[in-house]
C-alpha cells in the first residue's frame, strides 16, 4: 500500500469531517482523542500560568526584605500557584490527557465507555477553572489562604475564598466523572483475549487512580460545601469562634488531598512503566509485582492523611498509627523503583529523549520518596513540618515525579498524537537544561528546611539567604529548559517529519494503529494473545 492510498482510507481523527466546523468540531467532539487534546491545551495553559507565578515567588525570595512585591501579593501568588497547579494541572494532568487519548487504544477499544460523559467532564473542568480564577478579577482580590484553605484563617480573610472553593468543588465532579468512565471502560471494553494480567501498566494505574477519584473526591466536595455553608450562613463547623473545630477541617481536607497525591503519581508511574520497556527493548521486570504495588499504593494511600497533621495536637495514638502506615506506603513505591532499574539489566537501550526523562524520573522520584521518610518519622517530622523541606519534598514528587513523567510521556507519545517527529537533539538539550534547573531550584530548599526556614515565607532572616539565591537561579535555568522543550514540540507538531506507526518499536496496541490514529482507532478490534511487553 502506498502512502497515497493509505491517506485515502485512513483519515486521521484530526481531519475527520463532523457536524461542526472549526473550533466547535473540537469543543463538542466526543472523540476521546480530541477530548484528550482539549485537556492538554487547557492544562498546559494553566501550567504556564502556574509556572509564571512560581517564578515570581522565587524572584521575591532572592533576597530578604521586599524585592519585587508586597506581602499581600506574595500570599495571593503562592495560593494561586498551589490552587492552579494542584486542582487544574496535576490532578487532572496525566489521566485526563494521556488517559483519555491512550486508554481506549491501549486496551483495544474504539472509545471510552461513556463518550458524552467524557465531554461533559471537560466542560466541567473548564467551568470549574473559570469559577476558581474569577476571584482574580473581583474587588478584594484572589484568596491568600494557601491552597489548603485552613480554618479559621480562611473564614477571617476578606479575600475571595468562595470562588476558589466553589471552583474546586466543580472540578471535583469533573474528576469523579473521569474516574467512573475509566473504570467502566477498563472493565467492559478490553479487547478479546486481554485478561487483567495482559493489560499494559498505564491502564492499570488509571484503574487505581479511578477508584481513588471516585472514593476520595466526594469527601473534599462535602468539605468545600461546609466551607460555603460556614462563610455564607455562619454554621459553625470549623471556626472556633462559632463553636467549630479547625482540626476537623484538616482531617477532612487531607482525607481527600493525600490520596489526591496518588491520583497524581500513579498514572505518572504508569507512563514510566510504558516508556522503560519500549526503550529497553525488553519486557518489564516483575509485571505482577508492579500491578500489585500499584493497587497497594492506591489502597494504603487512603490511610495516611494524618501525617500532614503531626504537630496539630492530635492524640499520640493517632500520631504513631499514621506514622507507621506512612512508612508502609513507602514499600510498594520502593518495589517499583527496583523493578524499573532491574528492567535495564541485560537490556538493549535506545538512548532517546523519552528514555532520558524516564531515567531522570526514577532519580528525582527517589529523592522525593526518600526525603519523605524523614517526614514520616515523628521526631524528625516535628522539626521539618511546615518548613521549606516539605516544599522541596513535595515538588520532587509532584513536579519531579509527575512533571518528569508528563514530559517523558509527551515525548514518547508525541509521534502518535500529532503524527510527526520532533527534533531529537533539541529535545535532549531541553531535558538537560530542565534537569539541571530543577535540581538547582529544589535541592537548596531541603537545606533551608533542615536549618529551620518555615514555608509560605515572604521574608526571612539573613542566614537563609545563600540557598535562596541558588534556588532562584535554578528557577531561571528550569524556565529556559521549558522554553526549549515547548518550542521544539510546538514547532514539530506543524513542521516535523511525518512519523511512522511505531517509531520506537513499542509492543503495546497504540503502536499498531496509524499515527495519528483514525477516528475509531482500529479497523477491526484486535485479538490479544500475548502479554503487553513481549519482546522475544
Amino acid at each position, binding site marked *: 500500500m502506498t502512502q497515497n492510498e493509505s491517506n485515502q482510507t485512513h483519515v486521521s481523527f484530526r481531519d475527520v469531517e463532523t457536524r461542526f466546523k472549526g473550533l466547535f468540531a473540537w469543543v463538542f467532539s466526543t472523540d476521546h482523542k480530541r477530548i484528550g487534546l482539549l485537556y492538554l491545551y487547557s492544562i498546559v495553559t494553566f501550567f504556564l500560568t502556574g509556572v509564571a507565578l512560581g517564578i515570581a515567588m522565587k524572584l521575591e525570595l532572592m533576597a530578604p526584605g521586599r524585592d519585587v512585591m508586597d506581602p499581600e501579593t506574595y500570599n495571593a501568588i503562592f495560593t494561586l500557584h498551589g490552587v492552579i497547579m494542584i486542582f487544574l494541572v496535576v490532578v487532572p494532568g496525566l489521566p485526563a490527557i494521556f488517559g483519555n487519548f491512550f486508554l481506549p487504544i491501549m486496551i483495544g477499544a474504539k472509545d471510552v465507555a461513556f463518550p458524552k460523559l467524557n465531554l461533559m467532564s471537560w466542560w466541567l473542568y473548564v467551568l470549574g477553572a473559570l469559577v476558581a480564577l474569577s476571584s482574580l478579577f473581583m474587588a478584594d482580590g484572589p484568596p491568600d489562604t494557601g491552597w489548603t484553605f485552613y480554618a479559621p*484563617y480562611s473564614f477571617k480573610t476578606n479575600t475571595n475564598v468562595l470562588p476558589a472553593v466553589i471552583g474546586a468543588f466543580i472540578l471535583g465532579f469533573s474528576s469523579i466523572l473521569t474516574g467512573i468512565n475509566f473504570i467502566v471502560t477498563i472493565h467492559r471494553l478490553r479487547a478479546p483475549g486481554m485478561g487483567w494480567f495482559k493489560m499494559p501498566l498505564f491502564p492499570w494505574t488509571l484503574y487505581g487512580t479511578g477508584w481513588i477519584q471516585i472514593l476520595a473526591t466526594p469527601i473534599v466536595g462535602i468539605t468545600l460545601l461546609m466551607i460555603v455553608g460556614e462563610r455564607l450562613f455562619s454554621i459553625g463547623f470549623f471556626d472556633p469562634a462559632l463553636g467549630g473545630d479547625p*482540626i476537623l477541617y484538616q482531617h477532612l481536607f487531607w482525607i481527600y488531598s493525600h490520596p489526591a497525591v496518588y491520583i497524581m503519581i500513579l498514572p505518572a508511574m504508569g507512563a514510566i512503566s510504558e516508556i522503560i520497556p519500549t526503550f529497553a527493548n525488553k519486557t518489564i521486570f516483575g509485571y505482577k509485582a508492579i500491578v500489585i504495588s500499584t493497587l497497594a499504593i492506591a489502597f494504603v494511600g487512603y490511610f495516611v492523611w494524618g501525617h500532614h497533621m503531626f504537630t496539630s495536637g492530635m492524640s499520640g495514638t493517632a500520631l504513631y498509627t499514621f506514622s507507621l502506615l506512612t512508612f508502609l506506603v513507602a514499600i510498594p513505591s520502593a*518495589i517499583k523503583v527496583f523493578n524499573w532499574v532491574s528492567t535495564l539489566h541485560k537490556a538493549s537501550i535506545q538512548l532517546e529523549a523519552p528514555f532520558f526523562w524516564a531515567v531522570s524520573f526514577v532519580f528525582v522520584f527517589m529523592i522525593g520518596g*526518600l526525603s519523605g521518610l524523614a517526614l514520616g*518519622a*515523628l521526631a524528625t517530622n516535628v522539626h521539618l513540618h511546615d*518548613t521549606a523541606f516539605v516544599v522541596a519534598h513535595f515538588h520532587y514528587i509532584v513536579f519531579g515525579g509527575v512533571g518528569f513523567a508528563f514530559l517523558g510521556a509527551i515525548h514518547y507519545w508525541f509521534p502518535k498524537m500529532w503524527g510527526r517527529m520532533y527534533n531529537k537533539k533539541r529535545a535532549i538539550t531541553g531535558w538537560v537544561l530542565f534537569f539541571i534547573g530543577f535540581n538547582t531550584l529544589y535541592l537548596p530548599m531541603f537545606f533551608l528546611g533542615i536549618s529551620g526556614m518555615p514555608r509560605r515565607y515572604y521574608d526571612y532572616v539573613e542566614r537563609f539567604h545563600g540557598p535562596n539565591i541558588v534556588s532562584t537561579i535554578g528557577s531561571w535555568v528550569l524556565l529556559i529548559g521549558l522554553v526549549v522543550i515547548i518550542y521544539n514540540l510546538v514547532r514539530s507538531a506543524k513542521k516535523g517529519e511525518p512519523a511512522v506507526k511505531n517509531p520506537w518499536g513499542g509492543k503495546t496496541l497504540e503502536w499498531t494503529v496509524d499515527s495519528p490514529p483514525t477516528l475509531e482507532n482500529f479497523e477491526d478490534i484486535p485479538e490479544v494473545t500475548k502479554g503487553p511487553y513481549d519482546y522475544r
Partner: protein
Amino acid sequence: MIEETTNNASNFVSEVDSAFVFIFGISLFFLFAITIVMVYYVFRYRKSKNPKATHIEGNHKLEIIWTVIPTILVVIMFYYGWAGWKSQREVPEDAMTIKSIARMWSFGFEYENGVTTDTLYVPIHQPINLDLVAVDVLHSIYIPAFRIKQDMVPGKPDFIWFESGKIGEYEIFCAEYCGLRHSFMKTAVKVLSQEDYDAWYKGSSQTAEGAGAEGKALFQKFGCFACHSIDGSKLVGPSLKGIFNNKRMVIKDGEEIELVADAEYIKRSIYEPNADVVKDFVPGMMVSYKAMIKDEEVDQLIEYFKTLE
C-alpha cells in the same frame, strides 16, 4: 546573636538528630547505590554495546528480598522517630509553666508573676512547659535549634516543653501560615543562667514609673506593636503616633466620616475593631480584645497613647 545547631541547646536535640542521621544515612545510601547501578546499566546495556536484549520476566527471590529489606528498614525508622518524639509529650513534674499567647502576628509570654514579654526568657537546666493559646487563627511555635514545634489552635489549649542546656539566644518562628505578616511573626528565646534569670525575673515585676508606663507595658503584653507602629510608619493597622484627640477619617457602615480619636473612640476600637475602620485599612484584620483587656487597662493604654506625640 542566634546560636547555630548545638547538641545541648535543648534536651531533644541529640535524640532527634540521631534519628536524622539514621534516616538520611540510609536514604542517601540507597539513592547513590540505585543511581550508580542505573547509570551503569544505561551505559553498559545501550543498544550500540548490547544489540540484543535478554528476555527476563522477573525473579521471585529478588522481589521478596527487596520487599522484606525495605520493610525492616522502615520499621526501624518508624521506631527511631517514635522513640525520639515520645518524650516530647511527657512533661516532667517540676516543669516551670509559662503561658504563651499567639495572635496575628506576634508571640507573648506571660510568667507566674503576671509579667508579659515578647521575648521568651528561661533559666538553663530547668524544664519549661509552655501553655499554648492562640487567640485568632492557627499559629505554630517553632524553635529550630531545640527541634520542637507545636501548632497553636484557637479554642484548643496545648503545650510544648523543653529543657535547655546551653546559654544563648535562639530563634522562634511561626511555622503555620497565619496571614499577611506571617513571615514577620518571629521572636527569640533567651536562655539565661539561673542567677541572671532570677535577677531579670525580679526586675521585671517592678513597676516602671513615669506617665503611661503601665500602658506601655500593656502595649507590649498584648502584642499591639505587631500591627500598630508608634513612629508613624504604616503597618497592617494605623500608626498610633499622635493619635489622642486628633482627627481621623474612618469608614463607618460604608460611609466615610471624620471623627476625633477621643477616649471613647479608642475604647470602641479595641473592643469593636471593625466598627470604625480607619480609611485605607482593611476591616477584619483585628479581633475584639474585649475578653482580654479590662476597662482600667484601656485607660492605662490611653494614658500611654497620650505620650506618643
